[in-house]
C-alpha cells in the first residue's frame, strides 16, 4: 500500500522533492494561515458593515443604477482563472517541472491579476460618472470600504509576484523563495475566496435587497 503523503501544513505542500524547503516552510506557512485568519476577520466585518448599510442610500444611486454585472462576470472569470494558474505554478514547483514552466504560470497569474485590477478600476470610474462616489451615501461608503480593500490586496499580490520574479532571477530557486511561493499561492487563493463573497453579498445581495 502506498504511504500517505505527510502534510506539515494545510494546502499544497512542497513535498518530497524539496524536503529541506518543506521542513523550513512548516512554521512560517502555519503562521501565514493564522495571519490570513486575522485578515479574514477584517473582510468579514466589512461585509457586516455593508449588509447593515445596503438601505442607507440616502436618495443617492443604488445597486441597480451602478452595478455592471457583465464587467463583474468578466472579473470573476479572470480571478478564478488566476487561481487555477497559481495552482498550476505550485504543482509545477512541487513536481520539479522545468523552471520556465513555473515562471510561465506565475507570469500568467500576474497578467490576470493586473487585468482584473484594470477592469475593477474602470468599474469605479463608471460608477463615479453616475454619481456613485463614496461621499454620496452610507451605502456607497460601505461599498468603497470593502471592494477596493479587496482590490488593494490583489495589487499587493501583484507587487509580491513582481518582487518574487526579480528574486527568482537573482537568487535561483532557493528554499526561501519556494517557501514564499507557497505563501503567495495561499494568499492568492484567499483573495479568490473573498471575491466569491463579494459577488455573492455585495453584487447579488445588493441587487436583491438594495
Amino acid at each position, binding site marked *: 500500500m502506498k504511504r500517505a503523503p505527510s502534510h506539515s501544513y494545510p494546502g499544497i505542500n512542497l513535498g518530497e522533492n524539496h524536503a529541506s524547503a518543506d521542513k523550513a516552510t512548516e512554521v512560517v506557512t502555519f*503562521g501565514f494561515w493564522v495571519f490570513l485568519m*486575522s485578515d479574514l476577520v477584517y473582510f468579514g466585518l466589512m461585509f457586516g458593515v455593508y449588509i447593515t448599510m445596503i438601505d*442607507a442610500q440616502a436618495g443617492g444611486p443604488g445597486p441597480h443604477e451602478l452595478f455592471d454585472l457583465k464587467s463583474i462576470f468578466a472579473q470573476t472569470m479572470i480571478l478564478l482563472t488566476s487561481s487555477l494558474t497559481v495552482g498550476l505554478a505550485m504543482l509545477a514547483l512541487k513536481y520539479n517541472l522545468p523552471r520556465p514552466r513555473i515562471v510561465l504560470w506565475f507570469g500568467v497569474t500576474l497578467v490576470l491579476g493586473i487585468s482584473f485590477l484594470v477592469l475593477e478600476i474602470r468599474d469605479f470610474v463608471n460608477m463615479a460618472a453616475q454619481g456613485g462616489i463614496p*461621499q454620496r*451615501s*452610507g451605502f456607497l461608503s460601505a461599498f468603497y470600504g470593502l471592494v477596493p480593500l479587496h482590490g488593494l490586496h490583489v495589487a499587493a499580490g501583484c507587487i509580491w509576484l513582481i518582487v518574487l520574479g526579480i528574486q527568482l532571477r537573482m537568487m535561483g530557486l532557493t528554499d526561501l523563495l519556494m517557501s514564499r511561493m507557497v505563501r503567495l499561492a495561499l494568499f492568492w487563493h484567499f483573495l479568490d475566496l473573498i471575491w466569491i463573497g463579494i459577488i455573492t453579498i455585495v453584487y447579488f445581495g445588493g441587487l436583491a435587497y438594495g
Partner: protein
Amino acid sequence: MTSTDSGFFGRLTWDAFPIAGLIQNPGANEIVANAAAAIVVVGVVAVVGLLSWFRLWGPLWRDWLTSVDHKKIGIMYIVFAIVMLARGVLEGVVMRAQQAAGPGDGFLEAEHFAELFSTHGTIMVFFVAVPFVFGVANYVVPLMIGARDVAFPVMNQIGLGLTVSAGMMLMVSLVVGEFSTGGWTAYPPFTGAAFNPGVGPDYWIWAIVVSGIGTTLTGINFAVTIYKLRAPGMKFTRLPMYCWTIICSSILIIFAMPPLGVAALLLAADRYLDFHFFTNDLGGNMMNYANLFWLFGHPEVYLLVLPAYGIYSEIFATFSAKRLYGYNSLVIATMSIAILSFTVWLHHFFTMGQSALINAVFGIATMLIAIPTGVKVYDWMATLWRGRIRFSVPMLYGLAFLMLFVIGGLSGVILANPTVDYQVHNTLFLVAHFHNVLLPGVLFGLLAAYNYWFPKAFGFRLNESWGRISVALWTVGFMLTFLPLYFVGLMGMPRRSFSWEDPSFHPYMIVAVIGALVILGALLSILVQLWVSIRDRDSTRVPVGDPWDGRTLEWSIPSPPPEYNFAIIPQVTDRDDFAAAKERGQAYPTPDAYEDIEMRRNTGIGFLLCVFSGVWMFALVWWIWWLAALMTLTMLLAVILWSFDTNTEEIIPAEEVRKDHEAWLALVHSAQAVDRDHETAPENQGLARPDMEAVT
C-alpha cells in the same frame, strides 16, 4: 473638506504649540498643559544627553535597537510600558485633583479634562497594559517552552517598533497640537469631522491603527511559537499554565484586533475622505462603530487579564511549593473565558436602545463569565492550601489580587444586569468597577511578574523590603482611590465630569485624591526599589538561576540566560518538568555533546519601521500629504528591500556553547543550596534545596 488647500507643513502652525496658549491665556489650565509638554521635552533632552555623555549610542544600537532576541525585546517592551505608566498615573492624579477641587469647576478647563481622560484611558490600555503583558510574554514564553527564540524574531521586533512609534504619538500630542477629547473609545459622531475638526481624534486614530497592527503581529507570533516551537515531550497537557493563557490571549488578539482596526480606519475614512460610515447625515450609522469597537473592546480586557491569571498561577504554585491545583479545570476555564469574551460586547451599551430580550441575552452571557473565573479563584486557593507558603513580594501581590479582584468581579456581575446597568451606566460606579479589575487583576499581576522574573532576566534579586512597601502602597492606594467611587457612582455622579455640584460627593473625592497620591507614591516606590536593587546587586546575585525553587524550564538555565537560552534543548517528561527533575535528583544534567546553534542575525528593519511609521502618522495628523505619501513609499520599499537580504542567520559554534555551559555547570556544583527560609538572604545564589515533597 479643506484638506486640499494646505501648504508645505499642512495645517501645522505656531498655534499648535502649548506655549502659544500660555502666552495668550495664562492660567492654571495652560500651566498644567505646558508643564506636561515640558516634561516630555526635558525627558527627551535628558535621555539624548545621557546617552551621548556616556557614549552609549553604539551599544544601544548594536545590543538593543537592532536586536531580535526575544529577551531584549521583552525588556524594551517593559521599559516602554513603565515610562507610559508614569504618564498615565500622573494624569490620573491630576484628574482626581480636579474633581477633589470641587464643588464647582476646579482648575482645569473642560476640554483639557476631556483630553486627560482620553489619553489616560488610551495610554493605560494600549501603551501600558498591552506592552507590559507582551513584554513579560516575550521574555518568559520561549524560556518556559524550551525554545531558543519566538517563531518570527524579526516580526517580533517590528511589533515592538510599531507599538513604540504609536505610543510616541501620544507624547508628541502633548507638545504639538492636542489629543482627542472623545475618551479612549472615541465614539463618533462626536469624534467625526463635523463636531471635531481638529487634530485630536486623528492622533487617536493613527496611534490605534499602528499599535493595533503591531499587536496583531505579536499575537500571531506567540500563537505560532507556542503551537510549533515547544521542546520535545512538551505536550499540550504539559504546557505551563502561563503559556496556556498566552495562547488564549494570542487567539483573542488574532480575532479581536481587526474590529478595532476596522472601526478606527472607517472613522479615518469619515474624517479624511468625507465618507459616511458614522456621520449623522447621508445614511451614516453610529451604532456600527459602537458594535465594532466593543467587538474588540471586550475581548481586549480578557486578553489583558488572562496572562495575569497565568502569572498568578505560576506564582501561587512556586511560592506554595506545590503543583498547581486543578490544571485541567484552569485550562478549560481559560479557554471558556476566551470564547465567552466574544459573546458579551453589547453589555457596554445596554442603554442604547436595543430590545429588552437582546439586553437579557447579553446580560446572561456576561454573568456566565463569572463561572470559569470563579473556578480559577477556587483553584488558586486550593493551590495555597497546605502549601509551603512564603509571603514574598509576588505572593503578596497575588493575595491582594485574590481578595480585591473578587470584589471587582462581583461588581461586574452586578453591572451585567441590564436593569441595574440602566441606573449606574456612565457613572463612577463603572469607573470603580473596571479599575477594580484592571489594577488588582492586570497591573498587580504584571508587577508580581516583574518581581518574580527579574532575577531571571538580570541575574540579581529585587530588594524585598521596598517590594513590600510598594505592594502596600499599591494596595492601599488602589482601595482609597477607587472604592469610594463605587459609592459616589451609586449616588449618581457621572463619569468624565470636570465639574460637579452636589456637596455630598466631596468627602469621597477628597479620599480618592489622597488615594491617588498614595498610588503616585507606589509608582515612585517601584523606581526606588529598582535603584536600591541595582545598588545592592552584589549581595543578591543568583547566577545559578533558580532563586525561588521554580518549577518550570526557565529556572533550569543561568540567570541571565545566554543569548540562545538553552545550550541543549531539554527533553520534557513532566508538567512541572524542572521541579520533577530536582525531585528525581536529575536537574542540571551534563550533556554528552554540544551542537552549533543557528540564531537570527540582528537587523535594523524594526527600528526603521518605527521611525518611518512615526513620521507617517505625524504627517497624516497634520495633513502634510507629500510627507505621508513619501513615508508610505519608504515603508513599502524598506520591507521589499529587506526581503532581498538572505544572509540572516549566524552560527554560535558548539565549542563556545560548551565552554559557557561547562563554566556554569561548575558554578552549579560549587554553589551552596539554600532552603526556602533563606530565599531572600544573601547566600541564595540561585541553587534551591526543596524542603517540601512535591504534592501531586
